[in-house]
């Protein structure tokens, strides 16, 4: 049987691997044969992720990527890699009339500046092999307006626009860049920021498939985009939504 989504002999970096979608992706990458480098700020959470992963060659790297020197440290510990999944992100719920500069700095910092600077460093230090695959976890929210979601949506729209330009610059080396835009997925990100679970459970019933996503629903798509099966895919933003809008 053909193993279309094998990541054998690939070294993959996953950011935000301490929970949610990042953790599910790290676990499935390891089960698909990759050597996975996972990074996040919280060591205990990273250890939990590591314990769920297959194989013995995976490595955790504790790093707060909001600081450039930490990005440099992280990059130094990496071999040349074949793929990166930018999963680290934070949510934000604030009405337009209440937006503060601090909120913008925080959200754009984590959701836009960090992945861009990490990507910059990966390129500058020549850490990406030919034919590697870059994946950004964006959000369906970038193109689907919701109340109190303006800054979060804008941060995800920004990363999608960035990814499209990046794709052109790395294409000559056969490097591919794609985004994944999930609708609502049950993670800390959606539960933390002021919406109560009761309201979310009501909303989830409106999804055509009857539920919000699970991190495990998103991970196979990331593995596909990292695998050689998607060799002709770049500048794509794949929506994965359970039919929700």
């Amino acid at each position: 049987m053909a193993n279309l989504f094998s990541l054998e002999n690939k070294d993959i970096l996953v950011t935000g691997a301490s929970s949610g979608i990042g953790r599910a992706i790290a676990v499935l990458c390891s089960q698909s044969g990759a050597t996975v480098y996972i990074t996040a700020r919280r060591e205990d959470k990273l250890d939990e992720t590591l314990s769920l992963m297959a194989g013995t060659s995976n490595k955790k790297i504790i790093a707060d990527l909001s600081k450039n020197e930490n990005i440099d440290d992280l990059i130094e510990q990496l071999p040349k890699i074949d793929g990166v999944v930018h999963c680290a992100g934070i949510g934000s719920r604030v009405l337009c009339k209440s937006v503060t500069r601090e909120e913008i700095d925080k959200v754009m910092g984590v959701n836009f500046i960090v992945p861009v600077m990490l990507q910059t460093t990966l390129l500058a230090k020549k850490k990406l092999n030919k034919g590697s695959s870059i994946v950004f976890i964006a959000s369906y929210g970038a193109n689907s307006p919701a109340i109190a979601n303006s800054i979060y949506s804008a941060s995800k729209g920004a990363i999608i626009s960035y990814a499209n330009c990046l794709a052109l610059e790395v294409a000559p080396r056969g490097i591919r860049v794609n985004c994944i835009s999930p609708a609502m997925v049950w993670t800390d990100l959606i539960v933390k920021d002021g919406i109560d679970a009761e309201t979310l459970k009501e909303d989830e019933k409106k999804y055509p498939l009857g539920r919000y996503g699970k991190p495990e629903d998103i991970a196979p798509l990331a593995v596909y985009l990292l695998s050689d099966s998607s060799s002709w895919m770049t500048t794509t933003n794949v929506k994965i939504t359970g039919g929700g809008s």
Partner: protein
Amino acid sequence: MNIQTFVKNFAEQFDDTDIREIKKETKFQELEEWSSLILISIIAMIKTEYGKNVTGPEIRKCNTVKDLFDLVASK
């Protein structure tokens, strides 16, 4: 916590309702301008001004502004 200040902060979340119309005994969910948008605004105000987290369903269970004040004070 002061009830007068709370009523004033509460009333400020409305754009078109006459501020004098909102008192501590006002059944706020019966106000014409009441909406889910105002609800989010109230949640944000309570977090910013009082450092407390209240949920949408908790607010919807309140009848008057005073009920909401008591809820916030109890947290």
